[in-house]
């Protein structure tokens, strides 16, 4: 271990997990920095759930090491992890309060502490009056809130959320998103597993993309987008462009509805292009570099790895 370790809440080193006859996790290594939101991405069956189950100590890796806050995973670590699986589940016939109290105690909280913390969370979500309601009487969105509270009530240093927004209406999704940011502010780290790339771009600082149990991409979202950029620019303008306009070696990809899209070469600057545009006496409304969306990168990478 090196001295940087404590910087990371979670660190995986060469983790391998094989089931009967297929390798679900193949030599996976990545770090989740403290106080960040980290995206674990991959198509269905990529090995995300297998990885999460190793991190949550539900199963053990065949080889490789997993460190939580610099320590190899041990029996006490589950109390420091909050996990919301994609397949949500609560006891349907149990009351909200009893259920949350039970789950919080299983995470190592004393009954007294759990009650105080639960009160705080239920008040925060304005659902304190649900304490005596049965889960079967709640709507899907409502029980999702209860599930979220169960995941975070014990103040874990690592929170693992598997598709946290699925099945939520935009209002509740926003509510949960705000909570995620607040938890991050308070120092928690979030491992966020999803298919929804627009959410990843919005929320995550770093990502790892896996397919067939292997890492395809790993790094900061901004860096990755930069790495995959195609040197495209978009210009929105008013008026008509002179036909003799010199585009300075840029190729026009499209010119549609007063939006021009150019494509250049790596290393080429946009200075000359912008100058020429300004000289052409059209009214420039905007000038942007077009970065690839994570969705595009995701599809591209997964498709090449499947080939």
């Amino acid at each position, binding site marked *: 271990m090196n001295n940087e370790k404590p910087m990371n809440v979670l660190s995986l080193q060469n983790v391998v997990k094989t089931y009967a006859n297929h390798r679900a996790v193949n030599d996976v290594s990545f770090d989740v920095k403290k106080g960040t939101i980290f995206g674990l991405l991959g198509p269905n069956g990529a090995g995300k759930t297998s990885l999460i189950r190793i991190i949550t100590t*539900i199963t*053990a890796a065949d080889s490789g090491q997993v460190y939580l806050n610099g320590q190899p995973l041990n029996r006490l670590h589950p109390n420091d*992890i909050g996990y919301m699986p994609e397949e949500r589940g609560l006891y349907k016939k149990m009351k909200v309060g009893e259920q949350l109290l039970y789950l919080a105690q299983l995470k190592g909280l004393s009954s007294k502490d759990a009650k105080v913390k639960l009160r705080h969370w239920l008040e925060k979500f304005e659902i304190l009056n649900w304490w005596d309601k049965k889960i079967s009487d709640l709507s899907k969105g409502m029980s999702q809130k209860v*599930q979220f509270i169960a995941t975070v009530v014990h103040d874990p240093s690592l929170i693992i959320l598997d598709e946290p927004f699925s099945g939520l209406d935009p209002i509740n999704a926003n509510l949960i998103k705000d909570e995620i940011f607040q938890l991050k502010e308070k120092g928690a780290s979030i491992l966020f597993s999803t298919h929804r790339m627009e959410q990843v771009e919005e929320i995550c600082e770093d990502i790892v993309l896996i397919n067939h149990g292997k890492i395809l991409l790993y790094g900061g979202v901004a860096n990755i987008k930069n790495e995959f950029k195609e040197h495209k620019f978009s210009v929105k303008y008013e008026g008509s462009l002179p036909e003799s306009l010199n585009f300075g070696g840029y190729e026009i990809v499209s010119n549609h509805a007063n939006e021009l899209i150019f494509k250049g070469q790596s290393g080429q600057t946009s200075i000359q292009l912008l100058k020429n545009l300004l000289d052409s006496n059209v009214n420039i409304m905007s000038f942007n570099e077009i970065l690839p969306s994570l969705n595009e990168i995701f599809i591209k990478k997964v498709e090449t790895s499947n080939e």
Partner: protein
Amino acid sequence: MNKIWLVTQREYLTRVTNKTFILTTLLAPLGILVFMAAVVLVMSTGSDKAKIINVYDPSGLLQNEFKSRDNLTFKFSNESMDAQKVLYKEKKINGILELPPLTDSLAKSYVYKYHSDDQLAMDENFAIESAIGKKIRDFKLKKLNIDAKTLENLDTDVQAEPVTILEDKKISSITTIVSSALGGIVGYAMFFIILFYGMQVMRSVMEEKINRIIEVLISSLKPFELMMGKVLGVGLVGLTQIGIWLILMPIIYFIGAALFGINTEAMPNPVNDMNPEVALTFQSKASQIFLELRSMNWWFILPLTLFYFLAGYFAYSALFAAIGSAVGEDINDANSLTFPIMMPLIFSIYIGFSAVNAPDSSLAVWSSMIPLLSSIVMPVRLPFDPPWWQIGISVVSLIIFTIFLVWLAARIYRVGILMYGKKATFKELSKWIFYKD
């Protein structure tokens, strides 16, 4: 350990605070009493139509004595048969009992006639026959000049008195009967209790798998802790329920007796129907049974029975938990998988029955030492005082095997609870045992 206790608490509290549990626990003893009262009522109900029967006894065989009973009224009449048949036609009487004279004082059989278009009920027939039989007996005794007392002295009550040779213990002819009854009842109760609560453990496991809370749970505690907590919790519910029943049964019985007059005298009491001497021996037998029950070595039987119940419950319910983890939504899968577990359970109850008759048969002795069978067969044998070495082997082997089964079940359970969509077969289950964590 702390987490096992949390699971135990939850399983226990959600069950005992459940309305269905409270209702069944409180109402079951009441239900059993109502059922027993109903059975008693049905059994004691003879024909309920009032009948008037004329008795035509020209030879005076009955000496004008024939006690009317319940709904039967007997009237002696010396009118001619024809005249009486007219009465029948006019529906003034329901039948005519015609008693021909007894010609031969040593006759082995006697035939009387009953004139009517309706037949007598069985119990009515029986009463009439025994009344006539008694009169004929008296008549014969008189004819043969035999004193009734002398005759009674001819009857001898023969009983066996078992005496031990090497062991120093008191046994009586009742010992075997009491032991058999006790063994049978305990064996049967164990069978139902283990089956009933084992199934509850299975359902509880299935519930967590189906509603998908399982993944949240086992990210907080080990599958083994969850399984053990469950088994313990349901087991405590069982002990609570049985405890409440043991307390409630006598209370409800006495309250019922006081309120509704369901007392022993109102019930058809076999003692009432017997002649005094037989009744006397019966009563002495009853007190003998009580003595016998009191002389049983309860300090030895009760803790051991409890041990066999707990060990049997743990072994079977762990297996039920393993099965529950393997099946998903489809309850039919559960049925086919539980069958092999039910086999030793059913097998042992049959061996238990045979052990009641022959507690020292080699079948009973061996099965009381084989784990899974022993948890039912040995409690059946306990009242018969089996040798210490057999109990020793039985207890040790059951403990070892139960620990092994719990371990085995936990291996299957930890894999099964996370398996969806795979049809669970025994082949599959046996593979799971060897899966790495």
